[in-house]
């Protein structure tokens, strides 16, 4: 089955290779932008990031987002609730969430296998921007954070999808989520950069507040781990926080499913 999936991808060979490489293009623009930003200041770094750090950061967030992004998950769940195709999961002894998770894992694996080459090429060409490779413990933490970001991304979107049991149009909610993600996940800029901005609460900065939220784990956190921006006790604390968030979202998803299906069946659907 893996072979067939790969084969299907290869048939659209031109499209695929090009598409994957094209996703790196916006980073090119960002890199030029940051270079220009740096050249106009006299600082050597911004919030602890040198210009090269920022390039490495963006490349790493491409990687972490490849793990945590779940295109179509929430929408798909909402749609199957709307058109009733979810009913078969109410009747069959198949766990819907487990099923979705399994299919996502399969999709991701295929994607990684086929995207590995374009990714490897880009990272190799840009190896000059990266600081020296971190130690084994950091690498282990990095890999752990990637796996956790996959789970977190999955359960956050799955829970959102479950809202389809209560709301007709989930797309607006999903859109809001996407917007917040865009801003607070580290997709656009490292969260550390918010350290200079005071938040509403006394004695804290925006960065402090945002690091308690789950969004940073889908893009910022793994990159920060690799680059050594979070270390030691801080690293452990954040890993624990990430695990906590995963647990919270798993529970939320389960609860939403239980309550939602009960409500759904009540309508004689």
């Amino acid at each position: 089955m893996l072979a067939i999936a790969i084969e299907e991808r290869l048939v659209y060979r031109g499209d695929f290779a090009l598409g994957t490489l094209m996703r790196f293009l916006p980073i090119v623009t960002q890199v030029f932008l940051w270079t220009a930003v740096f050249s106009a200041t006299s600082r050597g770094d911004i919030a602890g990031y040198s210009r090269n750090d920022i390039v490495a950061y963006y490349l790493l967030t491409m990687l972490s987002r490849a793990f945590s992004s779940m295109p179509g998950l929430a929408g798909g769940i909402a749609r199957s609730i709307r058109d009733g195709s979810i009913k078969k999961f109410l009747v069959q002894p198949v766990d819907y969430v487990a099923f979705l998770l399994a299919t996502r894992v399969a999709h991701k694996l295929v994607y990684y296998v086929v995207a590995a080459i374009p990714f490897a090429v880009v990272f190799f060409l840009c190896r000059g921007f990266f600081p020296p490779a971190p130690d084994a413990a950091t690498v282990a933490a990095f890999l752990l954070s990637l796996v956790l970001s996959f789970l977190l991304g999955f359960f956050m979107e799955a829970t959102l999808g479950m809202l389809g049991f209560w709301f007709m149009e989930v797309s607006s909610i999903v859109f809001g989520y996407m917007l917040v993600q865009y801003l607070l996940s580290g997709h656009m800029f490292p969260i550390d950069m918010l350290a200079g901005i005071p938040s509403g609460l006394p004695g804290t900065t925006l960065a402090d507040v945002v690091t308690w939220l789950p969004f940073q784990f889908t893009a910022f956190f793994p990159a920060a781990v690799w680059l050594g921006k979070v270390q030691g006790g801080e690293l452990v604390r954040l890993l624990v926080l990430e695990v906590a968030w995963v647990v919270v979202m798993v529970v939320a998803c389960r609860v939403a499913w239980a309550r939602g299906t009960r409500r759904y069946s009540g309508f004689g659907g």
Partner: protein
Amino acid sequence: MIRYLSILGTFVRACLVRDMTFRANFLLECLTSLGWMSMNLAFYLLIFTFTPEIGRGTGWTREPFFAFVATGLIINSIVQALFMPSAEELTEMVRTGGLDAVLVKPLDAQFLLSLHRFDFSALANGIVGLVLLAWAVSRFDAPPPPVAWAVYPLLILCGVAILYALVIMLAAATILMGRNQSLYDFWFYLTNFSRYPAEIYAGPWGGPLRALCTFVIPILLVVNVPARVIAQPFSSEIWGPVAGMVGAALAALAVSRIVFQRSLARYRSASS
């Protein structure tokens, strides 16, 4: 010809009617584009807490930079509203054979294929762009001279024309290849290069890239020239780029039309 205007009017009317029927959806679309835009504005504000200028000595300090962004919003919203929806539908039309129906009508195919469907919710960004422009200009040390204001709308039009020509070229490619390429994705990647002032493309890689995007695919002219006219101190040096942009717009329109006609001549049509 008046006939074309009248037909255009019918399309616009039909689209407006549909938008007003699905009013909630329309408002949602407006909010969607505004949402993305505000995230980006927040990002730019953040950048300016770290640096006073984008690129040393380029003149793109905060207010001029926001005038640049505003110009980009205005131009892109026009293209997004008027031309993109029809272009996006083209892939579908080629696939289902709807293009055949267009070729059979005694009407210019390019006109029909680029102007039959619109997305007026995209204009929301343009309106915000106007507001942003007003705000930024009000905070300039010296307001732009009247001649700058006179030239600015013309250059906006040229920017729209250049982007339109690019849309047509992509449409021609779609017709020739008939594949399911997502026009929208490609468009995003292409126009992404023009989001910031051209001065950021400096250095051994940036220089050639800038030249490529100025002289070969004039994507960098689109926002840079009008933005510079309005946001940078006006000097006679600007007339060169202005003339260049007008010339580029005309050339782009001509070239894209030729390419489009050629692609129609080679049209394969979906199998029966």
